């Protein structure tokens, strides 16, 4: 119960920060729409719908990267991670709250991006939407953890994509597989990815946040 109220307090703070700054969500929206527009020119006539679906997944991963790179900027700029980790709450609440806010931002971007995709390219089946939801969970969990690692170093945001992209390859495979093939195999794979990496990130955050 305490755990959840701590998460709520921290997540409220993250949403409030975004509400004040109004930076991340508009940037993600504009980015994903620009990406889809570019993809129109990147797919030659005669390409299959699957190629367009593939690019949709690329757009989702890179848009999420935009949000993830910003995730710990407020904490980093003012050394606030110190203040947060000294609080008597479980440190994983910081990770969970951040992950939830990233999922929320990503969700907003996708609410615009998915209809735009059907408008520009081809229709989407329900399975793709389910895969997007599952992928968001995995992307946000892993990306929030690597984001916290990235801001701890001197290279800052620069290495966030390097840390995150190799870990996102299974998500891309699961997503495109779910969009392009029949059967629940790939949705199960995404669920497995989420289960494994949510647990791992949740357990590992304590070590990432603090040295003592």
């Amino acid at each position, binding site marked *: 119960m*305490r755990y959840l109220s701590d998460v709520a307090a921290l997540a409220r703070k993250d949403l409030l920060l975004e509400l004040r700054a109004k930076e991340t969500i508009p940037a993600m929206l504009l980015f994903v729409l620009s990406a889809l527009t570019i993809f129109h020119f990147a797919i030659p006539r005669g390409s299959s719908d699957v190629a367009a679906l593939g690019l949709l997944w690329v757009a989702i991963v890179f848009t999420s990267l935009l949000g993830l790179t910003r995730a710990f900027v407020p904490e980093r700029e003012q050394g606030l991670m*110190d*203040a947060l980790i000294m609080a008597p709450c479980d440190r994983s609440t910081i990770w969970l709250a951040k992950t939830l806010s990233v999922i929320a931002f990503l969700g907003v971007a996708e609410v615009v991006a998915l209809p735009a995709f059907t408008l520009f390219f081809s229709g989407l089946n329900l399975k793709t939407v389910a895969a997007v939801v599952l992928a968001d969970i995995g992307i946000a969990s892993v990306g929030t953890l690597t984001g916290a690692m990235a801001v701890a170093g001197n290279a800052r945001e620069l290495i966030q994509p390097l840390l995150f992209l190799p870990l996102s390859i299974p998500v891309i495979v699961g997503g495109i597989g779910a969009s392009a093939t029949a059967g629940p195999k790939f949705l199960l794979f995404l669920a497995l990815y989420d289960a494994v990496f949510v647990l791992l990130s949740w357990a590992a955050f304590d070590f990432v946040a603090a040295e003592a």
Partner: protein
Amino acid sequence: MVSARNLSKRYDTRRIFDKVDIDLDEGGFLLVTGPNGAGKTTLLRVLAGLAAPTSGELVLPVRGEIGYLGHEPLVYKQLTPRENLTLFGRLYRVPDREQRIKALLERFALWDVRDKAVATFSRGMQQRLGLGRVLLHEPKLLILDEPFNALDTAGAALLDEELATRSRRAVVVATHDPGRVEGLATERLAFT
């Protein structure tokens, strides 16, 4: 409350401090002095549980009973004083949160700007808010790194008053103006 034996901290191979012993009980006041780059901040961060000592034994109060004010006021600049204190009040489970926040903001003369973003504050106002943040949960161990920084006469007087009341807590202060708190100190640690 704090007990350190043979405490050492190194960055890579560089020794910042070596074999420091500290014993601090309730009512104790440790004054840390030394020139720039001597290792005061590093020691205070170790005592706050933010940095791990390289070697030595260290016993500290549990997390949540420590209040640490560093060189930065450690508040969210995009949020208002009230939102900042509400967040930390929740995380520290402060009883009667609203009243306590109001009392602190009034005491540090920030009540009138309670709903303005901290980013618009002067350095001294931010320092006052930082003090409010560490005092909010009535820590048993209060660690202040150059707390008089940027404070005006009135703000410094408020802090003097706060430091003079030492029942139920121990205080560690690092400062370049030791004369100011000289009378309060029960322990001294001078870095060279």
